């Protein structure tokens, strides 16, 4: 839906109208921006800045001790086994992101394309595919643990009963399949999100364009490849950024599906879990350490998402 208004392919290049537009006065700008600015600054930015400050102090529980400079940061990379868990978890987050882009967002796009055409049960499918997103992540994790259970889970039972015993894997218990399984379950939960975004993007594309292409003899695939997909670029940008942020902050589903230390043997460990363990399951100095980790995560996620966003915006501009 984000892309929708831009759907109009002969929309004017943005840059020019902005320059021509009459600028409202400074007090007007302030009046519009201030409410959000104040609320956001007080209740989100201020606590973050506090955390940043906290990361340079020693902590005893929640009581602040001496200023220790970068010692907490240094501890993150020297304390065993944290120093081994962090890079491993980072790698898993990267895989999580790439896997989600490849599976969840591709499926979301596919569903959006299929459900864009008038079709029986369109509304039903659209609602059903979005439903898992409405359920609390804790319960999603529990349910899929049950479904994937190697001993009495319905999935392996079904595979065995149709003669596919070889495929009946200990999904969450094997390091080779555990992370892909987590990615799939996470995609199960979230696929409605890109589907709706892409769906709105497709709805915004003028039907005339498709008609014209069809008259020129383009196939459905051709229309998708040469008309729809390029026009979806802004939505793809938004979906990519949100997926990146969501994946690198992933916690709820992984925690409830796999466990707090990313079993088996850390095969599903992600940064969100490392942060949780450091903050709430660590020693007396946990708070300073966790703040340091949070600061690093924030800086990384922020920098990359701004970068990705800028890149996509340039791409859009170039296309128009």
């Amino acid at each position, binding site marked *: 839906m984000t892309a*929708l208004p831009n759907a109009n392919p002969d929309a004017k290049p943005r840059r020019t109208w902005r320059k021509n*537009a009459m600028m*409202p006065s400074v007090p007007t700008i302030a009046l519009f921006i201030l409410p959000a600015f104040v609320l956001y600054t007080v209740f989100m930015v201020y606590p*973050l800045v506090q955390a940043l400050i906290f990361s340079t102090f020693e902590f005893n529980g929640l009581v602040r001790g001496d200023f220790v400079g970068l010692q907490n940061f240094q501890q993150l990379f020297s304390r065993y086994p944290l120093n081994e868990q962090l890079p491993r978890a980072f790698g898993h987050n990267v895989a999580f992101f790439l896997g989600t882009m490849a599976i969840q967002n591709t499926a979301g796009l596919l569903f959006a394309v299929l459900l864009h055409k008038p*079709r029986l049960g369109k509304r039903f*499918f659209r609602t059903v*595919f979005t439903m898992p997103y409405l359920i609390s992540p804790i319960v999603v994790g529990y349910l899929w643990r049950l*479904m994937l259970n190697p001993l009495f889970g319905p999935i392996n039972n079904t595979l065995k009963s149709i003669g596919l015993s070889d495929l009946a894997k200990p999904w969450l218990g094997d390091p080779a399949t555990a992370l892909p399984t987590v990615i799939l379950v996470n995609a199960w939960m979230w696929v409605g999100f890109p589907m709706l975004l892409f769906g709105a993007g497709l709805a915004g594309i003028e039907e005339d364009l498709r008609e014209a292409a069809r008259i020129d003899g383009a196939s459905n695939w051709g229309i998708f490849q040469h008309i729809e997909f390029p026009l979806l670029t802004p939505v793809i940008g938004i979906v990519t950024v949100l997926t990146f942020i969501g994946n690198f902050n992933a916690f709820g589903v992984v925690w409830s599906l796999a466990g707090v230390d990313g079993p088996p043997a850390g095969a599903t460990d992600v940064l969100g879990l490392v942060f949780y363990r450091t*903050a709430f399951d660590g020693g007396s100095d946990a708070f300073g350490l966790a*703040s340091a980790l949070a600061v690093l995560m924030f800086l990384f996620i922020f920098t990359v998402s701004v970068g990705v966003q800028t890149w996509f915006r340039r791409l859009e501009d170039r296309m128009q």
Partner: protein
Amino acid sequence: MSTANPSQNRSFHLPRISFASVGSNGMLIIYAIIVLLPLFIVVTNTMRPTREIYRVPVALPASINFDSYVIAWNEADFSTYFMNSLVITLSSVVLGTSVSALAAYILGRYNFPGGRILSSFFVAGLTLPFRLAIVPLFLLLNSLGLIDNRLGLILVYAATGIPFSVFILSSFFRQLPQELTEAARIDGAQEFTIFGRVMLPLVRPALATVAIFQFVPLWNDFFFPLVLLRSTDKWTLPVGMTRFFGEFQTDWSTLFAGLVITTLPLIILFLSATEQIITGLTAGVRK
């Protein structure tokens, strides 16, 4: 089947059912089953005693009964939690969306000095690990006397919705055709009038989207109320649900019933809102 065809039966006799359309329908149906099966287990398990669920985790209930719903609603005080959830979530979403729409309008429509930086500043909040801020946030609310206060939670929730809402809404506003504003401006309309009369109605689908996507995680969140609220009479539905999670023993039957009670309003809301979004979109585009 690829045309909107009310008489489904006819299509079976059509020789031109394409392989692709059978394939795509098959795929949609299979995926719908993959989605619904686990949800079906949730619903069936509300009708089975917890003892049985522990013993045979997946099975059909012996009888259709709604005892666990009654227990969840009455004993666990879900009626109180329900009202709290409703008040807290609605207020947060309305507050968060309103202030975001105002800011997003200016940030999306105008290029002014510092505008880019302000945009990044707002969007930066998206990248915050949700749980990170909890301790400083707690200390802040504590110093403001807003612990165990629904208003405190509403303010926090509204603030957490701002980054996403500004992110989405400003890109909407950015892409609205410029002639609209110019026409309004020639009429001598003030900025607020343009915003309220011309722009806001045009981004209504976006507002609905943003509101929904704020609503769902807030409605399901138990972490912030657990830490920021104290009295049980202020608790929300998800917090109430955590009471069924024991250290070693979980009351699955009641928990699942609680889950259904919690999720049903979301599904209804979503059902009505998706249609609103979709029709709003299509109507808005084909002017």
